[in-house]
């Protein structure tokens, strides 16, 4: 009996030791939430008005404007925002092979990220395939709370919509916008998005 129980005891001790090693190893790996640092995106910062290079495409933010509602020229209800629309003009081209800008976001001063809206038709984000060396220019629209533009917003552009770990992201910091300007944006209830055009 002692031999059998001894063997069972040895196995249990081995299993406990194994679990202990795995647990300690896991704690070492996740110490200080290392994954978010280890796999963070590579952010490439650039000024508004200049082009920046990502691994697969090049892009630049040319200008910014705002609105309270966006009208679709094809009809339908006005797209009224509970906050304010921020509309940025983006110029982009692929570098070596056809690629689309899968992710466009606005990051506010608190670090919150707002995805480009799907309520309005905008083909530069996601829908349009960029061709090597052929520059296109179009607008991307975002909805943010009215207080967000005054703290300064950053336009983010990347290839992948969701999987952005260890991926390069272009970042264009917009100048802070005063409250009066945002109120003026919100008063515009008939904005339309400029169709994407080829610059050559």
């Amino acid at each position: 009996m002692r031999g059998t129980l001894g063997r069972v005891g040895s196995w249990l001790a081995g299993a406990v030791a194994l679990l202990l090693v795995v647990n300690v190893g896991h704690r070492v790996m996740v110490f200080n939430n290392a994954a978010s640092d280890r796999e963070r995106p590579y952010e490439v910062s650039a000024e508004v008005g200049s082009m920046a290079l990502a691994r697969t495409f090049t892009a630049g933010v040319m200008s910014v404007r705002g609105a309270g509602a966006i009208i679709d020229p094809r009809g339908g209800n006005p797209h009224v925002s509970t906050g304010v629309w921020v509309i940025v003009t983006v110029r982009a081209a692929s570098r070596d092979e056809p690629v689309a800008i899968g992710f466009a976001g606005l990051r506010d001063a608190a670090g919150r990220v707002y995805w480009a809206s799907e309520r309005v038709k905008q083909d530069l984000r996601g829908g349009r395939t960029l061709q090597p060396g052929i520059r296109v220019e179009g607008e991307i629209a975002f909805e943010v709370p009215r207080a967000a533009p005054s703290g300064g917003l950053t336009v983010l552009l990347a290839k992948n919509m969701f999987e952005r770990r260890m991926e390069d992201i272009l970042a264009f910091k917009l100048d802070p916008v005063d409250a009066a300007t945002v109120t003026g944006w919100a008063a515009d209830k008939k904005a339309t998005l400029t169709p994407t055009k080829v610059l050559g």
Partner: protein
Amino acid sequence: MATFQVRLVDSRLVSSSIGRGQGDDAVYGVGPYGGLRDLFSLQRVIAGLGALAVLATVPFGGMKKAVDVHPDRGLERLAVNQVYDAGPYKITITGARLLKDQPPLYATNKANRWVIILATVEVTADESRNDAATAIHLRGVAGVPDMDGMLRNDADSVLVRSDLTVFYAAHPGMPEELVIGWEQDSKAAVPTEVDVLVTGRTYRMNTFNESMEWLDEEDRAIVTVPVLDRRNT
């Protein structure tokens, strides 16, 4: 080598079919535990522990399929228009409607009707999310199955109330009113009120990729909502 052969005889023949003689312990050299050793072989210990584990379930119904006799257990009961922080979003159920099929709702059967839940969602996480509408489900409504195969029966149509566009994502700090609709079988009874379950998640580390995520989706609250029949307006 000689000792090994003797033990083989012990386990296969002597102890099981012939029985052990008085002087056998001296041969095995195991002292007073010789009989117990046969009784507590490793296989028997494991089988015995397994049997004990099965027996331990008997007071709780044994192998019978578990049935939760208190489906509301653990759910917080909310009032209509009560804001509930469900994890990555605040959710407020503001009303319910019964509508006939009409654009931009498109039923698979034109004769069917729509059970509509009106809700306001606001993302409390630090990034836009596209799963807010899947945090709201109906329960026990005739003509609207709770399950869609192995999965929960998510809404058939989710629209932004202000412009009736298809809802895609809600954004941090921006409450959005939604029209969340389930197609109801036309032969089912007309509901006067419905139970709405609100699902929440917990912000914790994903042990597979070690990133912080909103996980552990579970029903956390229930709202009973009166249904206004608006099929003829």
